């Protein structure tokens, strides 16, 4: 899947399509430079999943947990301030990834080798002040 969005309002329909075509993987890795809109896209995805509470940046908290109803959880990770892969391990990455619940991970490049290959990669490329290219590829 690939989308071109021209402004932030278009993210909602992208998020809906991503959730409708949810794919086989429960780990979604979000690549993109600072300000690309990783947290913003994840906010829209959580909304499409039925999360009603506030979805905010987990940069400081490292992991935010959201309730998506019907005993489904969404784990929102941010590896931004981690220094190395040991820290990603020590915050419990493997336990969350193995939980079967959806894990949405910002800055996955900090701990790529800890994440399963069986994942969805979401790459956001900045093409203008508000224009973004969003590429979604499921490992198979």
């Amino acid at each position, binding site marked *: 899947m690939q989308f071109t969005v021209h402004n932030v309002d278009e993210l909602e329909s992208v998020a809906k399509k991503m959730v409708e075509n949810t794919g086989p993987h429960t780990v979604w890795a979000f690549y993109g430079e600072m300000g690309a809109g990783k947290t913003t896209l994840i906010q829209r995805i959580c909304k499409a999943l039925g999360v009603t509470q506030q979805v905010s*940046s987990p*940069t400081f*908290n490292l992991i935010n947990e*959201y309730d998506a109803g019907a005993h489904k959880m969404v784990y929102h990770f941010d590896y931004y301030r981690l220094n190395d892969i040991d820290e990603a391990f020590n915050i419990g990455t493997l336990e969350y990834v193995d939980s079967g619940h959806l894990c949405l991970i910002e800055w996955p490049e900090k701990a790529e080798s800890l994440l399963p290959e069986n994942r969805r990669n979401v790459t956001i490329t900045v093409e203008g002040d508000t224009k973004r290219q969003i590429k979604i590829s499921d490992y198979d």
Partner: protein
Amino acid sequence: MDTQPVVILGIESSCDDTSAAVITNGIIRSNIVSSQSVHEKYGGVVPELASRAHQQNIVPVVDTAIKEAGYTPADISAIAFTRGPGLLGSLLVGTSFTKGMAMALNIPMVEVNHLQAHVLAHFIKDDENDTNQPTFPFLCLLVSGGHSQIVLVRSHSDMEIIGTTIDDAAGEAFDKCAKVMDLGYPGGPVIDKLAKEGNADAFQFNKPRIEGFNYSFSGLKTSFLYFLRDRMKENSNFIEENKEDLCASLQRTIIEILMSKFNKAVKETGVEEIAVAGGVSANSGLRTALEQYAAKHKKKLFVPPFGYTTDNAAMIAITGYFKYLRKDFSSHDIAPLARMPF
């Protein structure tokens, strides 16, 4: 009459640091944070930013807090611990440790909400003569790396978040913008320092327009990033040449965003007293803005000592103390909560 002093051991392990503190009848006796010299005495290394590190930290930190307060475990009346919100693995260490110790000493345990504790840190007394405490109701601006909230405090046990960030926290805006300028992470204190030498009106950045008392800092981060990118195209030394002015202008913008919603909340709630809490309350620009605001609007302002702004167990212990007085204890089947209702 019961003249036994109420001795509360507080344990905090919600995020990076393990901390333990002792408070007697509301007066601070000790407040130990793992990143301090505790480890040197025990010959260990200080692992940074790892929730499993709490397991290594917790015994030396608690032991040091009790000893420094001049007590033995038998003197403790109850143990207060952070139940949430935070990182589950980190919270589990503090919760399990508290259960074991409370069971061994046969004393009650008291669950504490980490965010409420930040607010109640204002009630920690330095000594018996310390009467400098807010009176209810008051508004607290809670600003840190992970939080930006406006809390209406009606009593020790009745608080309400009336405004919160919908994306990034204020501290995160400082830190990420500092990173863009290559000032390191966390960069809040560096920005504060450089801002003192710069012109706060040199540059203008976008401010969010959102409803109610809520905050948003994500747009400012992006606007700052693109502003620098465009200027760097014209002059690759732009950041280096304008570092002080950039920091001063950025800091002014963040403070204006914080103060504008806080002012709105003060007006609409009609409170007479205001307070600030959390790591960003160490920012000198924010302190000055709050002091000027308080003087202009004749409000009484409470600013916590630096040691109570970042995550610490003294605030957990004081919150536990008020709950202890109400006999609001927790049962031993309690589990930590990564998300915890306020």
